[in-house]
């Protein structure tokens, strides 16, 4: 194909690559935040909090570049939709970074206390959440409508985890008041993971828009 706007299209590719790097850092932050909880690794929790600044910088950089391309290149059709979607995805990824950082703050609060409950389900939930994020970004890169729809609809699995964890924690907290404080922190952590999954759903929905031009599917 003869591409008469080759440089412009290369710039869009660079934008996409930068967004994927941001996605990879964000995914790592989610994993590290839960690893810090399980291993009681406060240094790792601090690392997650520090990495949030890097994630914020990525978001600003991507938004600036998107605005510049719109102003200078007057993109239309798929080019326009892709740039708009990358700008939106940057916001979703930044919010995910905030949630990972919030988990890290809760981990620091719990510190070296013994966990009130074996937390097997949180790492499992984390695997699910990080995989959904990876799959949603893959769907974006491959413009894979089928995958985007599938991932968008798999949000319920994460919700089930969250509901189970909250129910178990409530049972423990009802029987022992001393466990309420940590119980609330763990409930927040579960809720932060659930919110991360919601942002992955957003990524899928925006990918569907990018591919079809339709806001609803």
């Amino acid at each position: 194909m003869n591409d008469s706007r080759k440089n412009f299209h290369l710039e869009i590719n660079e934008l996409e690559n930068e967004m994927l790097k941001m996605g990879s850092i964000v995914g790592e932050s989610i994993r590290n935040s839960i690893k810090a909880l399980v291993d009681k690794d406060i240094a790792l929790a601090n690392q997650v909090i520090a990495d949030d600044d890097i994630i914020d910088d990525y978001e600003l950089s991507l938004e600036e570049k998107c605005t510049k391309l719109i102003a200078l290149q007057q993109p239309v059709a798929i080019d326009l939709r892709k740039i708009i979607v990358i700008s939106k995805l940057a916001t979703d990824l930044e919010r995910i970074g905030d949630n990972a950082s919030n988990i890290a703050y809760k981990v620091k609060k719990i510190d070296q206390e013994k966990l009130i409950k074996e937390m097997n389900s949180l790492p499992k939930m984390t695997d699910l959440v990080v995989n959904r994020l990876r799959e949603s970004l893959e769907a974006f890169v491959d413009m894979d409508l089928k995958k985007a729809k599938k991932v968008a609809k798999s949000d319920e699995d994460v919700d089930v985890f969250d509901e189970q964890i909250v129910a178990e924690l409530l049972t423990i907290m009802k029987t022992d008041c001393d466990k309420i404080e940590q119980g609330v922190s763990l409930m927040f952590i579960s809720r932060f993971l659930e919110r991360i999954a919601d942002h992955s759903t957003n990524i899928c929905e925006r990918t569907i828009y990018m591919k079809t031009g339709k806001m609803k599917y």
Partner: protein
Amino acid sequence: MSDNKMEVKNLDFYYDDFQALNKINIPLKSNKVTALIGPSGCGKSTFLRTLNRMNDLIEGTRVEGEILFDEKNIYDPDVDVVALRKRVGMVFQQPNPFPKSIFDNVAYGPRIHGLKDKGKLAEIVEKSLQGAALFSEVKDRLDDSALGLSGGQQQRLCIARALAVRPEVLLMDEPASALDPVATAKIEDLIAELKKDYTIVIVTHSMQQAARVSDNTGFFLMGDLVEFDKTDKIFENPTDQRTEDYITGRFG
């Protein structure tokens, strides 16, 4: 009654043996701006000129199909072509004022259609210049030569000249391509005003201009109308891959 001012049905157009347009079907809605885009040689200007039979002036051309104007085929043998061109005015790429005064340029059309009353002529000239958003700039020098006007003013004068014979449809063949951005913006604003009273068809090489000024857009490629739709649909999410390739520049 249909809201189509003109309706093009199965239009084929030939320059001798060369078929320049293939089975074109376009509804031109009343009081809307229709933009025609496409690469050079795609047939969009040829198509524009079929709408007031300007191509009749070129030897060896032939038309098949029909163009209904208020439900009457303009290619029927009983159509008076001069009367048709009075109803379907045209503005060209290069401003082409006559080497006459500003007043006489605008009064030219009504005069050759037989109007002699000076009061009425003055009224038409003022109204037409106002319609073309030029009156306030030239009202004190109507007797000056039109050739002393700037390019943008000359183009608006040509629009005023087209309006003076009270057309119903206005054809514009790249009306702003020879103008600077300020003059271009004035023409684009003017198009938005004019569509209240006229049906407008504009050929433009500037896709941004098509996006800004038009309600509907048609994309031509090698004599075919590839896609015709609302302008926002064409530029946000076109249906045909060839349209997308062209408007995003992935097409040589």
